[in-house]
């Protein structure tokens, strides 16, 4: 069951431009939250703050497991993950890329191999396990990025435009994976998309970032 996330009075300014202003919201656990908004409205910045990659200028981010506040940063970072718009590919095999999150957590080799095989099958890359990751197509790279995040079994799964510029077949595979995580694992999903129809298909809650604040649709 995913974590609950509460933000209060978040503010962030870039180069003198305020992108988040007194932004507060509570995201329910186990729900899929779809965030829409125009380019430059601060969606990615908000996600980077929520994923603990950046600090806000003001305000607080709280992760709650039930009523229990999680405040150990590394332990918390290991329960959440963010799939970036650009997949940072390690110069290694698909297997090594996907196994990275497990390797740094000290997961045993046998369990790692089984978990990697399962997620690669889920994203349709089982046959590419030993291929060089840098040789994958853009659609396959996106899917590998999803698999790499999925394999660590996050409680909160942030996705920043995971299907942007993908063909319908690749987008459908990724959507199915997201739906599976939501339904079977009850993972808290947070996703940025520019496609209202996709937001309707995947989301429990549709949100819009306007003037630096989150507005439910």
């Amino acid at each position, binding site marked *: 069951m995913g974590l609950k996330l509460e933000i209060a009075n978040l503010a962030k300014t870039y180069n003198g431009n305020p992108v988040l202003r007194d932004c507060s919201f509570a995201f329910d656990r186990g729900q899929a939250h779809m965030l829409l908004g125009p380019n430059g409205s601060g969606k990615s910045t908000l996600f980077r703050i929520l*994923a603990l*990659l950046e600090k806000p200028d003001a305000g607080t981010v709280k992760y709650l497991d039930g009523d229990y506040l999680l405040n150990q940063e*590394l332990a918390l*970072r*290991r329960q959440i*993950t*963010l*799939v*970036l718009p*650009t*997949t*940072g*590919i*390690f*110069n*290694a*095999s*698909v297997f*090594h890329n996907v*196994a*990275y*999150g497990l390797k*740094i*957590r000290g997961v045993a*080799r046998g369990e*790692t191999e089984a978990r990697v095989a399962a997620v690669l099958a889920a994203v349709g890359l089982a046959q590419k396990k*030993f*291929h*060089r*990751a840098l040789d994958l197509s853009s659609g396959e790279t996106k899917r590998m990025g999803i698999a*790499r*995040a999925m394999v*660590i079994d996050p409680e909160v799964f942030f996705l920043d435009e995971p299907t942007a510029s993908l063909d319908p077949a690749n987008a459908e595979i990724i959507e199915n994976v997201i739906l599976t995580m939501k339904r079977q694992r009850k993972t808290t999903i947070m996703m940025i998309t520019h496609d209202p129809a996709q937001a309707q298909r995947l989301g429990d809650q549709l949100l819009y970032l306007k003037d630096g604040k989150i507005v439910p649709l």
Partner: protein
Amino acid sequence: MNSIADGFTRAFGLMVTLDPEFLQIVFLSLQVSGTALVLATCMGLPLGAFLALRRVPLRGLALSLLNTGMGLPPVVVGLFLYLLLSRSGPLGFLALLYTPAAMIVAQTILALPIVASLSHAAIVSVDPVIRQAALTLGATPLQETLAVIKEARYAIMAGVIAGFGRVMAEVGAILVVGGNIAGYTRVMTTTIALETDKGNFELAIALGIILLGVSLVINLTLRLMQRAGRVGSAITSWA
């Protein structure tokens, strides 16, 4: 022309018969330069990584000093090290002057800026999204650093090769602090210089061939490792 041909003939004789003096010089060269390269890499790689990945005061000055150090004149390094290690110098009590250890120190000083500076350049050229990817997957700061260094490994290897080229070909510093003592601190480059001065070309030519051969073999090996890593990273083992 005859003396050159004669020199080559006798040089091959030295190599084929595994002349003990010849072998001792070759092994000492490899020992001194190899140790210096290992030391320079152990210090230079973390230094380059630190300057590349951490915002520290005076970083620009440190990088300028390292870049200047890449062109350090070996004789000047030898001179300063001599002054430090000579009996009246501040480190004279160590009694290192005219020992292989002093030669290792000299070559380490020469190789360190090259390895550190080229490691820095290799690491800063890694796409920043790699660091972010490692962080999003739960890496600690150390694991994040190691992930970036791993991405830069082939370019770092090129820096190590450059450092090796520098120390293997170096003659000025080790001549000053090693003293070119037969059977103790005489290495390939100092022997070539000495024997050429004396007009004994056969040993100089034999050592020249070995020097070129060693450099070629090591460079080819590292190049093959780089190529195998690029092409075959897909089938490397888990560890």
